[in-house]
């Protein structure tokens, strides 16, 4: 349990440290160090769980099992690589006068605040605290969305604040109903503990839990970006600084989905009706299809990839909704490869925007001629996210398709249609940006592309062969979520 506590304490210290000293010359590097140490801690935690199974702290406030530990490592990893990217990026933003020292301090302090909220969502065993941490993640990032103080960014931040705040209030109502159902048989202190609830799920009143789950799905679903609650997402992703877009897309959405799946496990234990699964499938499929069409209408490169995030989150929600071990395995894999690919894409997008000085798709041209590394990074990242073999996204999407054919064959055409439309939507926009002549006077910028290379290499590796320890991990998590092993 020690690494888990350290994992929470370190970002807390980071908030205070950067609030005080965030204006220093090499602050970006210090931020990388903070995130590097948390990454090591998360690996230590992962090894502990791998060796000894689920860890429950003695006061029951924290739980680490095979499901959340892999998300913790993923969070720490993406947080680390994004911080590597963010250091020169933010320095550049300061150089061209878009940011002041004060705002830079806010940025680094809240970067750590966001990481803290994410770790708390993942490690806590208390459903109420999970809600509090989810709300805290919104509060930490809302000022980062409006960091540039342009009218657009303020509008986006306000929308994000209000929509997510109201949305997540529904999840609290769901949590209160869950708590009410649990106090019927448990004492008040333990009634929100996930581990206690999970063991006694059969005792929970199924009708109350069904209603509670509707509220929780709407609430946390707002944060996942499920259609029709997705309005805030493209705005917040496109107007904030790019490192923020990378962690929002790669981490926040995953963790909201994690909260929904935890609750679904309780509802499935209490009822036999599979209602939670149907709701998730419906919302997931709708998000997937709507976002695929919206990809064709985008004029802003960051909005384009935000819609792609909605599309993929929809697919994952759908797969968790199917609920068979096979589908759950696919969804877990998709969560991982999507996070890695999407954050890599946002890193290259950030550089592309700095090269051309605009986010407008029509004005970004000739990236490969200007700076081959950035151009190829964007192209390969897009290939990966669109689901081309041999990348990991192909594997996981293929598994989701197979799982759908197994359980609900009549839904397969919709998935194929969505994947096709999304792929076309991405490429009609990406092709002209990376190929072609470069505009006059377009210069290469200083770029650190190691995060992109590492992320895409891992995604490629996962597409070719999933290493044994990882598939063991996924299998254990699948057993935990769906009750039996895949295959």
């Amino acid at each position, binding site marked *: 349990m020690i690494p888990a506590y350290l994992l929470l304490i370190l970002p807390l210290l980071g908030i205070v440290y950067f609030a005080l000293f965030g204006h220093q010359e090499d602050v970006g590097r210090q931020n990388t160090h903070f995130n590097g140490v948390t990454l090591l801690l998360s690996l230590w935690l992962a090894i502990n769980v791998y060796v000894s199974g689920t860890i429950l702290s003695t006061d029951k406030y924290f739980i680490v099992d095979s499901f959340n530990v892999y998300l913790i490592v993923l969070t720490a990893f993406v947080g680390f690589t994004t911080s590597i990217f963010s250091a020169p990026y933010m320095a550049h933003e300061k150089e061209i006068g878009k940011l002041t020292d004060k705002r830079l301090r806010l940025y680094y302090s809240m970067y750590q605040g966001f990481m803290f909220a994410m770790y708390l969502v993942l490690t806590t065993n*208390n459903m109420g605290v999970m809600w509090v941490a989810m709300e805290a993640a919104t509060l930490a990032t809302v000022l980062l969305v409006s960091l540039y103080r342009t009218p657009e960014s303020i509008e986006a931040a306000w929308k994000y604040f209000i929509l997510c705040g109201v949305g997540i209030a529904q999840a609290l109502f769901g949590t209160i109903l869950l708590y009410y159902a649990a106090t019927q048989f448990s004492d008040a202190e333990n009634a929100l503990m996930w581990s206690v609830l999970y063991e006694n799920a059969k005792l929970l009143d199924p009708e109350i839990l069904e209603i509670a789950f509707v509220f929780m799905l709407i609430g946390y679903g707002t944060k996942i970006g499920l259609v029709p609650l997705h309005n805030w997402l493209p705005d917040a992703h496109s107007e904030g600084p790019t490192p923020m877009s990378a962690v929002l897309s790669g981490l926040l959405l995953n963790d909201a989905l994690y909260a929904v799946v935890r609750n679904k496990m309780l509802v499935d234990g209490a009822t036999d009706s599979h209602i939670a699964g149907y709701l998730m499938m419906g919302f997931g499929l709708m998000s997937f299809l709507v976002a695929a069409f919206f990809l064709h209408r985008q004029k802003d490169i960051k909005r384009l990839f935000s819609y792609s995030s909605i599309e993929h989150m929809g697919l994952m929600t759908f797969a968790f909704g199917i609920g068979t071990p096979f589908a759950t395995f696919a969804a877990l894999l998709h969560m991982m490869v999507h996070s890695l690919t999407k954050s890599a894409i946002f890193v290259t997008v950030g550089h592309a925007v700095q090269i051309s000085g605009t986010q407008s798709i029509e004005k970004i041209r000739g990236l490969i001629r200007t700076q081959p590394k950035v151009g190829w990074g964007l192209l390969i990242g897009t290939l990966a996210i669109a689901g081309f073999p041999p990348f990991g996204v192909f594997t996981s999407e293929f598994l989701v398709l197979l799982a759908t054919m197994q359980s609900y064959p009549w839904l397969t055409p919709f998935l194929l249609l969505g994947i096709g439309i999304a792929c076309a939507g991405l490429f009609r926009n990406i092709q002209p940006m990376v190929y072609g002549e470069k505009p006059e006077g377009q210069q290469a910028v200083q770029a650190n592309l190691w995060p992109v290379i590492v992320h895409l290499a891992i995604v490629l590796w996962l597409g070719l062969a999933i290493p044994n320890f990882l598939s063991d991990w996924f299998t254990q998590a699948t057993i935990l979520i769906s009750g039996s092993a895949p295959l």
Partner: protein
Amino acid sequence: MDIENLDLYSQLILSLAALVTLTSFIMLAQGRLLRLVFIFALQGFLLVLATAIAAYSFNNPHLYISAAITMALKVLFIPWMLRRHILKLNMHRDVEALSNKTAVMMGGASLVMFSYYVLHPIMQNSSMVLLNALSLSLAVILLGMLLMISHHQAIAHVVGFMSIENGLFFAATVSTSGMPMVVELGIAFDVLVAAVLFGIFFLHINSSIDSLDVDKMNRLNEVDQ
């Protein structure tokens, strides 16, 4: 339900639930910001009363703490802060023209019915008091959303947001005599931070569009220009 046969606690809770819902309706039709904030503070005070009564009848000391937190946040700090911003931005003389008040009020009434409709089946086995109180607190949550939809001022949106929180707190107090202390403190902390952030946003919005009318923030959309 036989009201005379209920114990004093249940009668009080029922009356307070009704009053809290009433304040939500008054807010819905209120176009003056200062009065809106005053009614919001009143709603918070009713909530404090409900929590204190619950604390007294269940002999539950931690509910007193929760009542004190609500008093400090929802009755004193947030209304004070909103009032200060209204005066500073010179908005206290504006009357917001609410379009279609009748339809909004009818919509509010149907939301109350809807809340009963949603919660009735699951509360069949519990007491009528609980059914009423929970349904009304769900109604307060939904009315808070309606308030945000029908008003255009950012300050009214914040009041709506906070009254949604009030509804949630009322639900937690009556159904389970309060959430565990950690959770309650966490929620109070989030509300406090949210209130401070809202204050910062008023200034930003005001300097970017020169008013707090959120309808004027329409740069980001998917509509073809």
